[in-house]
């Protein structure tokens, strides 16, 4: 079921990453290539990358799948955790216990939100774009209601701050976590029955149903997983900024979709690769930082994102694979 075209996407993304880095070296020089800058960019990727994974899962499931509620749920998870956790564990006395409690509450809220999305789309059969737009507003509203609209301070807990900002063996911890999650997600999609059924369902829901795949349950679990990933993003945001607020990252919804489309995930469903989403997220981050280094207006960045989106949609129509040396034209399995 693979073709030269889809592998072209991966090579294309690797090429784009290399191209942007080489451009940065020529245009900016040493300062861009410093380890600190790569660590700084590394800490910025995970929150968007995780949200993009959510969008990817929704898109693979087909039926116009999309998850617009990601960042709203990430913020709500952080808000709920920051309000509840201090009453259970003291951050000063037991920082690790506090952080674990914080994460557990955030993940539970993610599960609840995901169950709602999953029930609306999977069992009630609502259109994903409408359902997640509704839950996005609901999650935002609850977060505003709980906090009265103001930012909630996490305070300076060294352990959490280290997790959010400090590298370990040169790699930012949140980035390492992001890569681990990517590997786990890739394995889940490639080797489990859930993963295989998800792709089959996305390719052709009618055939999937007649083949005995439990479409409703698969949809439910897909959106549950997407929301769980969003709440992990919420934990990372809280750790990185030492605070949570309902309107943090209000521009993330569109950027997450852009990353997903750039990664070649098919909006009609049935195809998407985790590694492509990771590479797409890093390419966008390096480019974004390059713009900041080169002092290019942030309005131009929005324009550039639009251009990139068109470029990648065009790329999906061209069979780059046919121009590649045969060694790169893999035609076997591999969807992760």
């Amino acid at each position, binding site marked *: 079921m693979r073709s030269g075209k889809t592998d072209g996407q991966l090579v294309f993304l*690797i090429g784009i990453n*290399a191209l942007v*880095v*080489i451009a940065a*070296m*020529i245009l*900016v*020089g*040493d*300062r861009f*290539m*410093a380890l*600190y*800058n790569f660590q*700084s*960019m590394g*800490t*910025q990727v995970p929150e968007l990358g995780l949200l993009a994974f959510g969008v990817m899962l929704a898109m693979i499931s087909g039926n116009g799948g999309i998850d617009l509620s990601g960042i709203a749920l990430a913020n709500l998870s952080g808000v709920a955790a920051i309000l509840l956790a201090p009453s259970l564990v003291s951050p000063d006395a037991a920082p690790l216990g506090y952080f674990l409690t914080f994460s557990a509450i955030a993940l539970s809220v993610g599960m609840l939100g995901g169950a709602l999305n999953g029930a609306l789309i999977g069992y009630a059969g609502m259109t994903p774009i409408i359902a997640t737009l509704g839950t996005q507003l609901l999650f935002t509203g609850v977060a505003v209601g709980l906090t*009265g*609209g*103001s*930012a*909630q*301070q996490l305070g*300076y807990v060294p352990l959490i*701050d280290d997790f*959010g*900002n400090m590298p370990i063996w040169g790699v930012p911890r949140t980035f390492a976590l992001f890569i681990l999650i990517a590997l786990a997600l890739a394995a889940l999609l490639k080797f489990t029955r859930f993963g295989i059924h998800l792709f089959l369902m996305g390719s052709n829901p009618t055939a999937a149903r007649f083949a005995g795949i439990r479409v409703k349950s698969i949809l439910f679990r897909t959106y549950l997983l997407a929301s769980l990933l969003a709440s992990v993003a919420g934990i990372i*945001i809280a750790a*990185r*900024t*030492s*605070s949570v*607020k309902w*309107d*943090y*990252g*209000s*521009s*993330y919804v569109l950027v997450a979709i852009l990353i997903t489309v750039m990664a070649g995930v098919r909006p009609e469903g049935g195809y998407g690769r985790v590694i492509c989403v990771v590479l797409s997220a890093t390419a966008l981050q390096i480019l*974004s*930082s390059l713009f*900041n*280094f080169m*002092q290019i*207006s*942030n*309005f131009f*960045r*929005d324009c550039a994102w639009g251009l990139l989106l068109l470029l990648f949609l065009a790329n999906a129509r061209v069979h780059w694979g046919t121009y590649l040396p045969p*060694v*790169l034209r*893999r035609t*076997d399995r591999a969807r992760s």
Partner: protein
Amino acid sequence: MMKQRMTLLGALAASVAFVGACPAMAEDKEIVTVVKVTGENWFTRMDEGVKAFGEQTDGVSTRQVGPARADAAQQAAIVQDLIAQGVDALAIVPMDPSTLEGVLRRAMGRGITVVTHEADSLQNTQLDMEAFDNAEFGAHFAAQIADCMGQSGKWTSFVGSLGSLTHVQWADGGAAYMEQFPNMELVSPKNESFNDANRAYETAKEILRSHPDIRGFQGGSAIDVIGIGRAVEEAGLEDKTCVYGLGLPRDTSAYLESGAVDGISFWDPKDAGFVMNVLANKVMNGEPIETGMDLGVPGYENVVVTDGPGEGKIVRGQAWVDVNASNWNEYPF
């Protein structure tokens, strides 16, 4: 197959690592001002001050950046990239002070000078610059209202919302000032306009109905005076009422001309941008910041320095600008 892929990846990485990098040039000290959002009149005006400081100061280059959309996450990303670039000083107007705490701690850890504006709750800053003391600003409105009313009669105050800390401080500061005049009577204080000129208008109309003899209005948010002015104009009370408050010259000009609004005050973002850079430069050069300093801009000639919530200090000026029908067109915003 996988092996070949890895070889390719390795080759790419190697080629990336071996392409020569241009050496960075050592030049002027760089102060970068980060604003909440670019393209807004307020921050376009601030940019003038930032540029002016860079032009008249040797050995320092200045520039202003900000996100295209008002999103705290985008502002934090910009600050993070600036830290990685290794700029010498940051002058920041935070979208949401608390989200920048971690990032700014890192900036200071790397030896970058950090100065902020409109963020007196921020802990990780060396210096926070405020245009004025909020209670004094409120008292300044009240003094004008009292003068205009001959120290006697009914007056009221508006706030954007009771959650807007600065607005409430202005209203309280005004009320405290008025206590010295026994004939001034404060009625239904701190009306909320919710930053909506229509709500301010409706509320002002209600107050005019329930207190037909009211003469004084103190506005809170920048659009309060617009709503009050419209209500006063409709009631034909332009010459009998005294309306003062925060406002922007262009927006309020029609009511200033008709006399429905008597005067507005604000702080000039151009001066704020200039002074932030002055302070950043001083801190960068290790000069002490003390009460009574003259920063070379009207309103900041005799600043007050107090301790902030963290390690840093707060610098306050008396930098409000008063505008009325005679001089509003001197300000292009």
